[in-house]
């Protein structure tokens, strides 16, 4: 045999590199992420809120639920962010308020990603009538205002964190499925899909074992973007009274409890800090999403 004369054998320029090439690619990705300022800043912000969501009232200077006689005090050294109409410390409530949002939003997003990916894979891979039917339905759902559907369902089923997760998760499934479907359409043109069909693989194997690992990048980006929207949606529903219930220190709950006080022109601190908290979390999540997007696109 002519083993020495073929490119598969003999001289070896990349010896030693080969087995860990996949790791090198992963390390390169991490390196790029660590060089992305957007990604780092986003992570610091999100990390800050995750820490407080876990630590909760154990580390806050006051018990966020404790009512005192110091009602509606302006920010001071004793109460950094002031107190609300029940004399509760707003600084502690803002820190502790991260936990409800950061429980409901990620779980709802996870649900949306799982369902949306499944639907997107099926519609993108099979195409044809299944795609036409499901995609038209998805378009129809996307045309309805999200809040209206959510309010309808929550009114019918009653508010609880579980229903909130289910509602947000299902309402976000169509947009996720659209993104996944578009990625699958590109991927299924590739010959490895045909090669799988030619050895007799069935649809589910091709979708979940062949295609899915190759589209994880876009799915992760979609998940982060959706998480930002989910936080907004929960904030909106809670504000309207369909979400988290009192006396939770949830941010939107704080806003809805206190916004009537704004009319008087004073007491701005009862609302402002909760608003800033929501804004920073959403911006932080979006910065992470941007950072991921850049690396995935490259």
């Amino acid at each position, binding site marked *: 045999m002519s083993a020495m004369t073929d490119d*598969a054998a003999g001289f070896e*320029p990349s010896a030693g*590199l080969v*087995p860990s090439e996949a790791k090198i690619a992963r390390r390169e990705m991490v390196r790029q992420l660590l060089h992305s300022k957007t990604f780092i800043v986003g992570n610091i912000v999100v990390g800050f809120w995750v820490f407080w969501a876990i630590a909760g009232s154990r580390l806050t200077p006051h018990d966020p639920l404790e009512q005192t006689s110091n009602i509606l005090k302006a920010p001071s050294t004793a109460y950094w962010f002031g107190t609300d109409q029940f004399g509760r410390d707003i600084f502690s409530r803002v820190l502790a308020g991260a936990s409800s949002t950061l429980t409901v939003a990620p779980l709802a997003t996870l649900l949306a990603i799982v369902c949306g990916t499944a639907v997107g894979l099926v519609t993108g891979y099979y195409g044809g009538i299944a795609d036409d039917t499901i995609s038209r339905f998805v378009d129809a759902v996307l045309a309805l205002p999200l809040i209206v559907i959510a309010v309808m369902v929550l009114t019918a089923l009653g508010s609880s964190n579980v229903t909130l997760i289910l509602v947000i998760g299902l309402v976000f499934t169509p947009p996720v499925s659209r993104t996944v479907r578009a990625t699958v359409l590109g991927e299924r043109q590739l*010959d490895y899909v045909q*090669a799988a069909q*030619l050895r*007799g*693989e069935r649809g589910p194997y091709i979708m979940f074992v*062949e295609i899915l690992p190759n589209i994880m990048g876009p799915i992760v980006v979609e998940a982060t973007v959706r998480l930002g929207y989910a936080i907004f949606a929960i904030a909106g529903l809670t504000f309207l009274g369909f979400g988290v219930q009192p006396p939770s220190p949830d941010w939107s709950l704080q806003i809805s409890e206190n916004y009537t006080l704004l009319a008087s022109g004073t007491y701005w601190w009862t609302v402002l800090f909760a608003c800033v908290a929501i804004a920073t979390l959403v911006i932080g999540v979006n910065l992470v999403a941007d950072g991921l997007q850049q690396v995935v696109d490259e």
Partner: protein
Amino acid sequence: MSTAVAQEVEAPHALELEDLDVVYRVRSSDRQVLRGVTLHVKRGEAYGLVGESGCGKSTAALAVVNYLPRNGRVRSGGIRIDGRDARALSGAELRELRSNAVSMVYQNPGAALNPSIRVGKQVAEVFKTRGASGGEATDRAREALTRVQIADPGSVMGRYAHQLSGGMQQRVVIAMALATDPALLILDEPTTGLDATVEAEVLDLVAALQADLHTSVLFISHNLGIIRKMCDRVGVLYAGCLVEEGETDTILADPRHPYTVGLLRCVPRGGVRKDHGRLDTIPGFMPNVGEELLGCVFAGRCTLAVERCHTEVPEAHSIGGSHMSRCHFHEQAQSLPREVVADLELPAVDRATEPLLSFDDLGKVFKQQGHDVHALVGVTAAIWPGETLGLVGESGSGKTTLARSLLGIVAPTSGAVMFDSRDLAPTLKGRSREDLRALQIVFQNPDSALNRRHSVRKIMRRSLKKLTGLTGSAADARTRELMDSVRLAERYASAQPGALSGGLKQRLAIARSFAGNPKLVVCDEPTSALDVSVQAAILNLLVELQAKEQVSYLFISHDLGVVRYVSDRIAVLYLGRLMELGLSETVYSGPHHPYTEALLSAVPTVDGGERERIKLEGDIPSAANPPSGCVFHTRCPRRIGTICDETEPPLVEVEKNHLMRCHIPLEELRALQAAGPPSVSAAAAP
């Protein structure tokens, strides 16, 4: 050297590179891509830069026009364009130089044109930036398009880029490049994406324009045949180093660097066929970009290399005239040992027996925007056990559709496929595991054919499980066996395809297709994405596997030299119809169908024994609206009259084992083709 100096006094060279070093900065270290390249392009000269992928030829071009990627820079050396030092110029002067003195034509014309601006406006834009008024610019754009032999410039100017064929797009790009009357025109693989007949037209055009305008040309290509046809002098680039340079004819006839010698031997040519012997290959890999090399860049792969080659950089030895070689032992370069291989026993094909696979009157109609597109029309052929049937034709001829219909990926609209004397279900769903095992494919692009998230082992084991039911240690053993048979080292088993070179990926794809001991493997352009030295190794492998496994191939390729090497019989497709089918040698030596004749004459070869080229006029007609009568009559240089326009000739056996679809009788074709290529008037005569 002294002549060069003398000329410099008269007029500066169009381009001079002196000891040019280009580096790319990757992860905070400099990787050298060009290693002291020195060359010049004289005025009015066509200079060819040839080399395999990764050798730095495109980097050289980008350095000249100062378009290196952001992490690339010229570390040292000089670039002089038209006598001016490009590295010493300011930003504005450089822009001016770039817009007036140099033009570049890239590989993909579709990407070079703006898809949302009409062609006429885009071409006129070039003149407008040079100060022409609106009306004047339009007139000059029309002139420019006429100059590149576009027959109807008015209508082309009103169209968008995507409405033009690839050849037409490239003409437009060339027209724009020439609009500024540049001193230097750089062509970077300008015909790589084009069909052979279109490629020939574009090359003819460039040659004619060059002769006409006395433009200097830097022609970059991996194809020595094209370089031979187009260039006065050629430089061979390897791993960023110019290893040999000289007059094109001298280099091809008397190469003095082992790399050039090896490169020339890799190409299947001169009618070599698999039963005559194996192809030569170049062992090993090109050094990685930026690798520290103490000696000769080629030493690691050179079978002549001695100690000195690894430790001492060879200087540029002058071998008479302008011929230069960077090899310590350039006198011995041609004694580069050929590989000695055991003779293969290729399967004997007995066409008296039942064929392995046959298809009868196969047709496929695609619906496209309400139109019927006839991708295949009544194709009938058979493949016998152990035989290779070559399938050639331009893009859009139905090659891939035919392969997919046989494999069951698309269901044919009419006709039937018989396998081992039984009907084969039209789609994969209806086929048994036995059928799936028997028919497999090797795709053109291994990057797309292999799942980039699965390891080599997983890819192999899954195929084995599905096709043969092997699992566990039995599957591991068989995986090792298969990897061994394609010479894919076992340590790659845990790697993902991304870690393998192009050639290794294709080996893996071949190993996968052989997992279930197939009877017939469709090879869909398996080497067209690979460099010539790798191509030779893959072709050798396929032939070797055929000898060992007695497998049949349906071998699709646009490279007629490759098809000739591997095929026992050849089928020629045009617009979904079989135009000619015969033994490989019969089809090549003729008399052949006028279309086959044109295809063969379009290919630039390395040996020089080139036929005079037959011009095919116009583009391939659309399969949605095929011409009446003989579908080839609109382009046929041997059309004999109205019978060709009105009646479709039947596919008849003109001699034993030779089928043809042409109104001209065989003997007449023989006489006509012996007399040489048809002139334009001959085509019109009855």
